[in-house]
C-alpha cells in the first residue's frame, strides 16, 4: 500500500527525453514527509526511469519556469520540469 504521507512529483519532459521516456509527464513518489532537493530529484528520475538514467545527471530542474540550484528544495505543488540538454538554434 502506498504511504499516504508520501508526496507525489509530476515532472514534465521535453524533446529527446520525452521521446526516450515515451511520455510527457513522469510521476514520482517522493520520500515520506521529507523535502527533496533538485539534485535529489534528478537522482530519483534516473532510478525511476532507466531511459533517462544517462541524461538526468546532466539535466536541470525548473520549478514554475525557473531553474533551481541543486540544493534548492522542490515544491511538489509547483510546476516541475526536467530541462535536459538544450539543442536550439
Amino acid at each position, binding site marked *: 500500500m502506498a504511504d499516504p504521507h508520501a508526496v507525489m512529483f509530476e515532472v514534465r519532459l521535453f524533446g529527446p527525453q520525452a521521446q526516450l521516456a515515451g511520455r510527457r509527464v513522469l510521476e514520482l513518489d517522493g520520500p515520506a514527509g521529507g523535502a527533496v532537493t533538485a539534485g535529489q530529484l534528478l537522482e530519483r528520475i534516473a532510478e525511476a526511469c532507466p531511459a533517462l538514467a544517462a541524461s538526468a545527471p546532466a539535466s536541470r530542474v525548473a520549478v514554475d519556469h525557473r531553474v533551481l540550484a541543486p540544493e534548492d528544495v522542490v515544491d511538489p505543488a509547483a510546476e516541475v520540469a526536467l530541462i535536459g540538454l*538544450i539543442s*536550439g538554434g
Partner: protein
Amino acid sequence: MSGAGVISFELVDGPIEAGQGRVAASVDALGEANEVGAVLEFCGVVRRSERGRALVALDYEAYPPMTQNEGVRIAQDILEETGVRAIEVLHSVGRVPVGACSFLLRVQSAHRAEGLRAASAYIERMKQEVPLWKLPVWAGDA
C-alpha cells in the same frame, strides 16, 4: 545608455521567412543618442544530415513561457555587457524542413565590433540556457 535598448524573443510556428520581425522602427525611436551603424542578422538553417544520416526536417519544441523568459534574460545581459542597441530573436517551434531557417538573431549596434561580439555571445548562451529541443525527422521515417 543602460535600459535604452530594444529586446524581443518570439516563437514562430514552422520556418522563419526572410524579413520577419524587423524592429528598425523601434530602434529609430531610441533617438540620436542610440543611433545604429551596424545591423547584423544571423540565420540558422536546418542541415541535410545529422551525424551522417539524411534528414528531412527537425521538429522543435519549446517550453513557454520559460523559453521566452530565458531568451529575454540573456538578451538583457548581453545588451548591458556589450552596449548594443537592440537584440531581436525569432525561433521556430514545430517542423522546419531541411534548408529552411529555424533561428534568426538580429543585433543592431553603433559599431560592428560590439554587434559581432553580442551575436556570438548570444548564440553561445542560448544553446546552453534557453529551453529549446529538436527531434530529427529522418529521411524514410517522415
